[in-house]
């Protein structure tokens, strides 16, 4: 199944209602890239622009959340503006048979904002676990990382810290239609 089509698998609100229009759902999906309109009835505004009803919009968003297509619905904070100017990508070389367990524990740390497994690319790139730490200064990030290493006994795993020195481009993904 084409990944985009996952968004079309929305059941009608009530048993007898007709299924929502696929084009309407795709238009809704695209409009949501830029967030909710800040009107008293944002879902109605989205409905007007996508050719669905307000109920269909709410129903679709609820089901996309339940299916995991939407991770969360809420304020998307720009950390840099608030003073979180230091962000480090920490990459680790963890034995393949341990990486899942280590990754799950690492993801549970409140200082870790993302945690993914990725393939090694030997010989250039030996690291298979990535996590992101956002902080207000380089020193603070390094202190937090030191604490994480001690608490989770990560001393024996080689790692490297890649601080970001410049953001050239930063925006939400666009997957439907354009680009």
């Amino acid at each position: 199944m084409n990944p985009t089509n996952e968004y079309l698998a929305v059941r009608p609100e009530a048993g007898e209602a007709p299924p929502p229009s696929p084009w309407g759902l795709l238009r809704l999906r695209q409009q949501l890239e830029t967030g909710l309109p800040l009107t008293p009835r944002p879902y109605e505004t989205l409905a007007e622009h996508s050719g669905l009803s307000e109920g269909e919009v709410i129903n679709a968003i609820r089901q996309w959340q339940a299916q995991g297509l939407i991770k969360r619905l809420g304020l998307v904070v720009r950390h840099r503006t608030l003073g979180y100017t230091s962000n480090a990508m920490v990459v680790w070389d963890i034995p393949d048979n341990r990486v899942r367990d280590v990754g799950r524990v690492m993801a549970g740390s409140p200082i870790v904002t993302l945690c993914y497994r990725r393939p090694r690319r030997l010989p250039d790139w030996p690291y298979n676990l990535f996590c992101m730490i956002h902080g207000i200064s380089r020193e603070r990030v390094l202190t937090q990382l030191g604490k994480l290493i001690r608490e989770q006994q990560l001393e024996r795993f080689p790692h490297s810290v890649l601080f970001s020195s410049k953001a050239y481009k930063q925006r939400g993904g666009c997957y439907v239609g354009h680009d």
Partner: protein
Amino acid sequence: MKPDSTDRQLIDLYQRNLPLSERPFLEMARTLGISEAEVIRRLQSLQERQVITRVGPVFEHSRAGASLLAAVAAPEQQMDLVAARISRAPGVNHNYAREHTYNLWFVMTAPDEDTLQDRLRHLEHQLQLPILQLPMTEGYHIDLGFEIDWEALP
């Protein structure tokens, strides 16, 4: 202008679980003890001040089309030029300089895997630099929004 205590509450309470009802901002207003109009005005202001990029859904991108993290090792004196080319390439939505031999890191997206590979090949050809391709194979983090440590901020 720094977020005041009501702004902070909005951020702390609603990085997730924004109400899915006909009047979501009214529901939020009741929780915060302010008016619906004030919630909307504050959200607009937070957006204008770029404290938030938007109010809305965060999509699970690994399931919405194809994407991957990629890196190149650009010669130090050409970094800005190479970065500009990467930023202009179709499907690139994040592009950062990082302190490493692989000094430019970006996320490339596409509607499907074939298009993604085409875009990468094209960019590689254009840059004349090998691209390190690092797709996500497993995600361990559940995105609940990032708890802001207000006290620690400058």
